[in-house]
């Protein structure tokens, strides 16, 4: 597979737009081709099985102080010509845009990852086979979830001379196993290589969790010490990315961030790194800005946030490559955020509810607390503190004297995520970081388990 076709298409649209808008206009073009296939199962059979291949062209024109942008999935010559003319007309008619940050000039980007041809070539039968492995591994329990593959080729070109292209692949499993008593367990993993995801291992793990959660009891809400498994920690770091490390919210003083200040525990190092071995990402954004490893928090000290060109200009810094289709409105989210794990030996499979030996080591340090597998439906009450409410899901257990003693029903929490990682609040970090897929886009969060001093549970299963 090659991203050359996308680069040629971007160059063609750029030429059309420059001819129409005139030589003084700033013009940039982004082309994305995504081949997505997702095999979804529920009640232990494949009930929804979909695929599509879509090419989308995005065009921005800034002319005489006014800006308009457009996109289209119609890439025939006539349709592209019409899009260009509509965008030129829209730029003339739109209100003034005094915050236009200009375009990036010729700047090299890192090479893309190696493409996993097994993902590119994966057939519906291949995906069905992996689903069957998962379903067989959960045994007499009910299985539900998805296995997906995605190939993404992208190119960017602008009137200031920047022209870059790249491609990436991703495979992901997100699935549960459910007992007849409706207790469930979960398994999630994203990877750039399809061979990394062993659906049978994940099925056995989810089934063990589901069986161990059977017979859950309700306990009193309140502040508990917790061990959050990677599936729950992924939610914490995702929300911190959205509301804390979002450059637009930083500019608006809606973020908690104070650069250079120790705002988190010294054991916390958070990075965003779409070009690492962990995550599937492209080495540039929709403005052609190169992406590299971005240190957000180093040893507890807040260091940086995600910016596109407009928010960076407002902040007086350089863009670090986080422009997206709607980032001008909603801001920038670190799409491949990673909480660095602790040094330690490679984890092994264990019996019972903990997902592996790394989690169990943290559990062993807890006097009284809760082991939480997953979060659900977390929403922000106030971005200034990343104050979130949500529920536990897919397995919660009471820990006493370092042992998992009984399953606990789901609980509601209302908790400041930034304060939960504050100085002194992080009592342990797991040694195994797992990439957890998102439902939208190719983004993921990579996280180990965490032992935290306190988590504010504000309601039980019965209200």
């Amino acid at each position, binding site marked *: 597979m090659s991203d050359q076709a996308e680069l040629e298409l971007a160059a063609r649209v750029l030429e059309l737009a420059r001819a129409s808008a005139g030589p003084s206009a700033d013009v940039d073009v982004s082309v994305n081709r995504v081949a997505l296939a997702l095999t979804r199962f*529920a009640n232990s*059979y*494949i*009930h*929804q*099985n*979909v695929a*599509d*291949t879509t*090419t*989308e062209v995005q065009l921005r024109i800034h002319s005489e102080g006014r800006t308009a*942008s*457009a*996109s289209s*999935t*119609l890439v025939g010559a006539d349709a592209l010509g019409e899009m260009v003319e509509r*965008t030129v007309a*829209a730029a003339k*008619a*739109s*209100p*003034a*845009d005094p*915050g236009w940050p200009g375009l990036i000039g010729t700047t090299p980007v890192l090479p893309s990852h190696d493409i996993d041809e097994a993902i590119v070539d994966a*057939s*519906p039968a291949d995906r*069905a*086979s992996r689903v*069957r492995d998962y379903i067989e591994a959960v045994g007499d329990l009910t299985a*539900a*979830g*998805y296995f*997906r593959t995605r190939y993404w080729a992208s190119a960017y070109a602008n009137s200031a001379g920047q022209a870059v292209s790249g491609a990436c692949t991703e495979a992901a499993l*997100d699935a*549960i196993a*459910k007992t007849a008593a409706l207790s469930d367990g*979960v398994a999630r993993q994203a990877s750039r290589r399809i061979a990394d995801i062993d659906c049978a291992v994940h099925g056995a793990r989810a089934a063990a969790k589901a069986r161990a959660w059977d017979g859950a009891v309700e306990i009193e809400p309140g502040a508990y010490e917790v061990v959050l498994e990677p599936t729950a920690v992924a939610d914490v770091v995702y929300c911190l990315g959205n509301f804390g490390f979002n450059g637009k919210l930083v500019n*608006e*003083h809606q973020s908690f961030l104070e650069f250079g200040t120790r705002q988190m525990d010294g054991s916390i190092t958070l990075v965003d790194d779409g070009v690492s071995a962990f995550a599937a990402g492209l080495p540039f954004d929709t403005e052609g800005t190169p992406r590299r490893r971005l240190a957000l928090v180093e040893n507890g000290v807040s260091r940086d946030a995600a910016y596109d060109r*407009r928010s960076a200009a407002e902040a007086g810094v350089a863009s670090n490559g986080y422009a997206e289709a*709607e980032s001008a*409105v909603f801001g920038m989210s670190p799409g491949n955020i990673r909480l660095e794990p602790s040094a330690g030996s490679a984890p092994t499979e264990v019996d019972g509810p903990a997902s592996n030996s790394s989690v169990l080591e943290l559990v062993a340090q807890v006097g009284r607390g809760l082991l939480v597998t997953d979060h*659900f*439906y977390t*929403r922000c*009450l*106030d971005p*200034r*503190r990343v*104050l979130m409410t949500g*529920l536990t*899901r897919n397995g919660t257990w009471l820990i006493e004297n370092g042992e998992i003693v009984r399953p606990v029903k*789901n609980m*509601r929490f*209302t908790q400041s995520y930034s304060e939960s990682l504050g100085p002194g609040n992080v009592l342990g970090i797991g040694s195994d970081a797992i990439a957890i897929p998102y*439902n*939208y886009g190719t983004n993921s969060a990579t996280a180990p388990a965490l032992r935290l001093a306190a988590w504010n549970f*504000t309601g039980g*299963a019965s*209200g």
Partner: protein
Amino acid sequence: MTHFDAADAAVEAALGAGATYADARVMHRRYESMSARNGDVEDLTQRESAGIGVRALVGGSWGFFGVPDLDDAVARRAGVRAAEIAAASATVPNRRGGQGLIPSEPEVGTWASECLIDPLAVPLSEKGDLLTSATAEMRKQGADIAVGSYDIWDTRKWFVSSEGHRIDQHVRECGGAITSTVIGDGETQVRSYPSRRGQFGTRGWELVEEADLGAHAARIAEEARALTRAPQCPAGETTVIIGGEQLALQIHESVGHAIELDRILGWEAAYAGTSWLDLSQLGSLKFGSELMNIVIDPTYPGALGSFGWDDEGTRAHKRDAVRNGIWKGVLAGRESAAVAGLDYGGSVRADGWARLPMVRMTNVGLEPGPHTLEEMIAATDDGIYMDMNRSWSIDDRRLNFQFGCQIAYEIKNGKLGRMLKNPTYTGIGPRFWASMDMLSSDIVAWGTPNCGKGQPGQTGHTGHPSAPARFTNVRVGVRG
């Protein structure tokens, strides 16, 4: 070649590749949005998307393929690909037997939403001036961040099935909003108008004109500033009057999603979740108080979830969801209805040509009650009035919810008192609805343009007729 021809070709190819049933939707959508901040435009986007999505049934299993090209040969290949994917699904089949569809008359027809002013034809300068002037006014009146926005969707669809359906529809939707944010001491306070994300409907630009955004700019900026100085909403259990905008989202989350048949059947178990409702109790389960009458009504004029036919060709039809507090109906499709043993569908839609049609809310909302908001306040000795959504969360069975609102007022001796900040309320769905003892007659069909569901993720547009209502013994003031 017409769009119907492309859909016909895709269906024919799917049947030729072994499908026992197939349907195809050609969709062409134009979208426009503009956002202004603090008096300047920060984004103007125009999108166009067109393609064909084909659904095929092979051996009782389904496949779907979408492609952004309406060429005859491409449409045929899409039909074949859908059948191939369905054949792969059949290798991991439902052990209880294949999934069919409930019978349907082969509908043929045309439908268009009412639109007095084409929103895409309104000059960009006029739309931009509306947003820049409103945000400049909010800024002038004390907002730290003043944002205004509108969104417009213009969608044409051509649907064909192997059973003889042949339907084309033209749906125009739009709406807009303004929001003032004030940064306080370690907090933010927000006020929006007309709702959190804006009011939306299957109407033309007249909807935005009627909202008169500019006339409310100064008020919401002043309220956001005042909230930073207001006392906290107290914690405890009390009587709560919930405004119509917030109650619309309460309906959406705790009723609309709970009555989706695919959730009840477990098809969303791994992601969106299931439902606390059990089909064996359909027709007898007490969902709420006798004041609770909720209908599923895609024929509601101008509401955001309105259409002529759903995306598998079932004609729009009004149906009870809850009548006098008793659970009466579900949101269903032809496939889920067949599995559940029901005889109606009509609530299946897709977010574009590249996505599989699935069970979605249409317009799910309250019928009017006998009271007014003023009567409810006057009848309350001690309570809290809160409105305008700020946060929302509910569990995977749609029982345990917590909502945050933008603003609240205490009620003492039948009168509104002090403004309160950070109001939240929490509860369990059926217990909460059973406590509804007063309901206003002042119904507004609020639009929700951001309902997420499905894998791959789809964004749905839903409508929720709603009115202020009173609830007793509600836990409020949850804080982290």
